[in-house]
């Protein structure tokens, strides 16, 4: 009687272990198939697989290049600047630091090929808060080889009294005339680098 009870208990134990192991296997299979299907079935997954295939075909099609000789063609195009007002929001850096409305560039008081660049707008903002009306001034000079320009930041000048982001309207001599969205005019002296 006692022996039978012991056997029954052993069988029950084996049953528990077997159930535990089965649960492990089922859970692992479920997780593996979920991960696998997520990775492959999405449009992005299909696109990535196609890209990898195309790349493999390209690698197989052409022998690896020599690492001894140059392959790329040289270019002789020299970049050309334009003087005057530039209606572009391309500023001197990320818009989180300065949000350009437009810009002006050119020589100031006979500075020749060394140009002053002024971006007008407002200081940038990482948040939704509006920035402060301002201009950013840089000096750009051609490099010795004539293929580029060396950029030197001069400063950021804020006009807290202005009623909105600034835009370059015109330039007379060393004075740059700026307007706000409300139509109010502000003057900035390129020589003294101060708002008038």
């Amino acid at each position, binding site marked *: 009687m006692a022996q039978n009870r012991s056997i029954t208990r052993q069988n*029950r*134990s084996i049953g*528990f*272990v077997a159930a*535990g*192991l089965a*649960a*492990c296997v089922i*859970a*692992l299979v479920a997780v593996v198939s979920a*991960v696998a299907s997520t990775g492959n079935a999405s449009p992005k997954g299909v*696109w990535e697989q196609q*890209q990898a295939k195309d*790349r493999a075909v*390209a*690698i197989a*099609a*052409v*022998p*690896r*290049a020599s*690492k*001894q*000789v*140059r*392959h*790329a*063609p*040289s*270019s002789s*195009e*020299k*970049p*050309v*600047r*334009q003087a005057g007002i*530039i209606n572009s*929001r*391309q500023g*001197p*850096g*990320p*818009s*989180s630091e300065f*949000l350009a409305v437009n*810009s002006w*560039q050119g020589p100031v008081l006979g500075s020749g090929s060394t140009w002053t*660049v002024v971006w007008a707008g407002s200081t*940038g*903002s*990482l*948040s*939704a808060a509006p920035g402060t009306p301002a201009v950013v001034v840089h000096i750009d000079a051609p*490099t010795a*080889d004539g*293929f*580029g*320009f*060396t*950029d030197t930041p001069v400063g950021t000048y804020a006009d807290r009294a202005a009623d909105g982001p600034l835009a370059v309207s015109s330039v007379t001599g060393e004075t740059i005339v700026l307007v706000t969205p409300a139509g109010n005019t502000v003057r900035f002296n390129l020589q003294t680098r101060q708002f008038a």
Partner: protein
Amino acid sequence: MNRNVRVTILALAMFLLATGSFLSQVMPALAVAPQPTTAWSFYVLTTNTSTLYNLGCNQGTADWHNGNLNSEIILDFGGQASGNNGTNLLFSYAFVSYATIESLAENYADGWWICSGADYTSVLDLTIGTNNSNYHIDSAGGAAWAGVVNTVRTWASNNGFTSQLNVGGANDMEPGFDTYPPTKSWVDGYTSAGGPYYVNYGSADGCPQTTHTNGGCNNGWNQDGEWYVSYGALPAYSTPEIYYQSQANQWGQIKLWKYMAFHGPLDEHDLNTSTFTPAQAWTALWNAEGGTQMLYSLEVHHSN
């Protein structure tokens, strides 16, 4: 203790052990992974092909001598010009044709290839970048940029570079530069024209830092728009500007809105020392987004 209870506990422990062991393989680790060696990206300010060759050579040498490192770099050529035939470089706004941009990128690739010497295993992701601040923030602009990238990609393939060079696009998309609809059109134009992968190395200015309910961002953008141009579109990936902690927070919330993968953070510490270092940018983005896919650390410099 009852034998049945002991056996049950044993079975449960085995299950937890097996599940935990498996999940540790597929789930992100909580600890921040070591930051990879930082690769230099560039605002290209020159059309001198020798300069670009030398910059590529520097990266190739570094990748080889640091144990055959995989790297990703961006060459930024400024915004697309009004004629959709070139770009205007940063700062000088000087015009450079698409043909010259292709030549400059190919010379960078050539320099990297030759100077990586006996390294035959590392792979360089060379991405060619523009931004959404100038002209042709539209479908035609996206298609034209896909053409530039594919020209360089084909050149690399025809010359036997593909085993170690993966050419892609890049775009510094920032809410402050332009609104979402034209920027989306650019992305869709790029995709439709068969552009390969690209990275968005822009920002999510004004997006929420603590919530992910498709909140609004600056200039009419929202979290879903940021997600689309950075991962939702088929070729889109992201190396976001992480100059400040708030930017990492914003991208972390976008990833919680909808899943996305980051190639890694871009910092500008060399140009503005008040912003995050590569290590700070790496840690901030990793902690904010979970670090599941980050592979690279990028820092932007001037080319001359």
